[in-house]
């Protein structure tokens, strides 16, 4: 399942399918100070492109995806900015209009396939449901299509499995079923939120191969949300590194892995043991997200940074674009890895 990278850069001059601009999500909980989980995030994804949102827990990557999908509860959450899908700002759509879009134009695959599937409905029916709702296909006609979809995502013996309930399937099979549901209406944008985190590594390889194939064959745009830099390295064309709700670095995967410029990106790469290199001592990032500074007057990462300078604790760094990359740092890393 290897694919030359140059193949996957196709459509690099086509117009973006989805453009997220200055997306900000503020949690307002009773008795607590407002908390900006996502803070002015902007990126875009073109048809056939895979964009990765990478970061650790609490960096805002999942909230970003939920905000795009309009799945954040209205109460207690304030979402601003624009999410432009082919000229329509998804954030201004009514609940009904958004519901129509979800599943048809944009689909999502979640981390935990068991809790994302309805436990009391056979998997096949959950696929046909989408077909019935969004494409107005009768159940009788939808059944063989559902079987086809299950077959396409690599579920063996689909005609029999179509009647299975989620608990009768293994974790890998469930994730495939979930992808089949997501693909039912041939969405042009797929958002995958940690789709392989709950799976074993051999099953993860199968699912990643499936996603890769899908993007290449159908030109679906894919937003891949993950904490695993290994997954990103193999799958994503463009990588957005998030920290504390903001994008701190963006670039195509080769340059970003070869020459990470943000100390956080660099620190992450230094933190993960690699299977293919002999055990050098790891260089962890000290502290945890609890040590962050507020972005308002500083760089949130400064306390954990390997090379902070004075200005890092007094001014907010901005995201500067240059040469296809973007960086939010006063004192970037200069040395190539």
């Amino acid at each position: 399942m290897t694919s030359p990278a140059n193949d996957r850069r196709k459509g690099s001059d086509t117009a973006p399918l989805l453009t997220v601009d200055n997306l900000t999500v503020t949690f307002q909980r009773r008795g607590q100070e407002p908390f900006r989980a996502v803070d002015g995030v902007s990126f875009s994804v073109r048809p056939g492109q895979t964009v990765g949102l990478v970061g650790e827990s609490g960096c805002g990557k999942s909230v970003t995806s939920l905000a795009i999908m309009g799945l954040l509860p209205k109460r207690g959450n304030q979402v601003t900015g624009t999410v432009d899908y082919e000229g329509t700002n998804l954030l201004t759509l009514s609940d009904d209009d958004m519901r129509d879009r979800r599943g048809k134009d944009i689909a999502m695959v979640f981390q935990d396939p068991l809790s994302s599937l309805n436990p009391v409905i056979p998997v096949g029916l959950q696929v046909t449901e989408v077909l019935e709702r969004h494409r107005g296909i009768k159940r009788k006609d939808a059944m063989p299509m559902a079987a086809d979809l299950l077959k396409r995502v690599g579920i063996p013996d689909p005609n029999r499995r179509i009647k299975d309930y989620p608990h009768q399937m293994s974790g890998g099979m469930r994730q495939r079923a979930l992808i089949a549901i997501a693909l039912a209406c041939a969405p042009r944008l797929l958002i995958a939120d940690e789709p392989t985190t709950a799976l074993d590594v051999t099953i993860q390889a199968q699912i990643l191969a499936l996603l890769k194939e899908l993007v290449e064959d159908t030109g679906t745009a894919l937003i891949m949300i993950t904490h695993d830099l290994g997954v990103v390295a193999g799958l994503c064309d463009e990588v957005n590194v998030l920290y504390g709700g903001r994008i701190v670095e963006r670039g195509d995967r080769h340059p970003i892995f070869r020459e990470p410029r943000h100390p956080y990106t660099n620190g992450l790469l230094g933190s993960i043991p690699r299977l293919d290199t002999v055990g050098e001592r790891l260089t962890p990032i000290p502290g945890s997200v609890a040590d962050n500074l507020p972005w308002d007057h500083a760089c949130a990462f400064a306390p954990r940074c390997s090379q902070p300078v004075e200005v890092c604790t007094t001014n907010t760094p901005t995201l500067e674009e240059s040469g296809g990359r973007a960086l939010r740092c006063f004192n970037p890393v200069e040395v190539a890895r």
Partner: protein
Amino acid sequence: MTNPLKKYGDARKERIDQLAAMSDGSVAVADAGTIEEAPGVSLIASAWRRLRRNPVFLTGLTITTLFIFLAVFARVIAPHDPAIGYLLDKVRPQSNPIPGPEPGFPLGADNVGRDFFSRLIVGSQQTLIVGVFATLFGLTGGLILGILAGATSGWVDSLVMRAVDVMLSIPSLLLALSISALAPRPSQWTLIIAIATVQVPVFARLLRGTMLQQRSSDHVLAARALGIKRSSIVFRHMVPNALGPVIVQATIVLATSIIDAAALSFLGLGNPDDRQPEWGQMLGQAQQFIYDDPHLAFYPAACIIIVALGFTLMGESLREALDPKSRR
């Protein structure tokens, strides 16, 4: 009045000062990250912090505190002796069986001329005694059985739980009725024992469930791996962590046992001696005058409801505060 952004800024300044103090002017944190200087806050303490600000809890607390105060000092507060028929001469069985309010007797008297207001106040005493003791006995019995079942496994557990199942399968009021009926002479103690018996299986089952949860929890496994003595594991690690829901349940049982006591007294199974008033018993006696003098039923009923509500509010807010999911 406070500007959130300003607070934010202050927090930041503090943070930077703290970092600066820690690491000679540079902002870097230690490998493990920082921890606050302030002393630790236990779960109980943080639950209390949440409770203190919870209006529901404060309402419940106020009601129950007033009630307990009233019950403890009832004899001092009550203007008259509840057993003496001061207004007996005003009772005329044919025309006007219940004397109305008059100076010194704000709620009038009952059908034998005793001061109704004083009887209500003193009645709280019996209600509190029955409620507290019934809950206490029920809780003790439940704790013993629950810990026994939850800490051991195998046949002890099976035996205890089957017995508990049998008790639970009998309708609670019926069980209480039978126990009261078995007593040679009804008194408030038969009431207490009857109600306590009904509560034992409830507590036992609840505690066993939480104990089992604890037993299969990681921290108990960790304690075993550490080589901690078995008794220490049970009483230091399992029981304290299993008690939360039981304490909440106890608060709510206080409310239900007050209602149960009232119900049994109403049915005539409580203390027959009406010189010692009790709200349920007063309610029972009031039923023959319900058409002409509904206030005789209304006041004790209202008292029962308010006190039960007080305990329930407290229990519910305790449940919320102790719920691990609401922990930050």
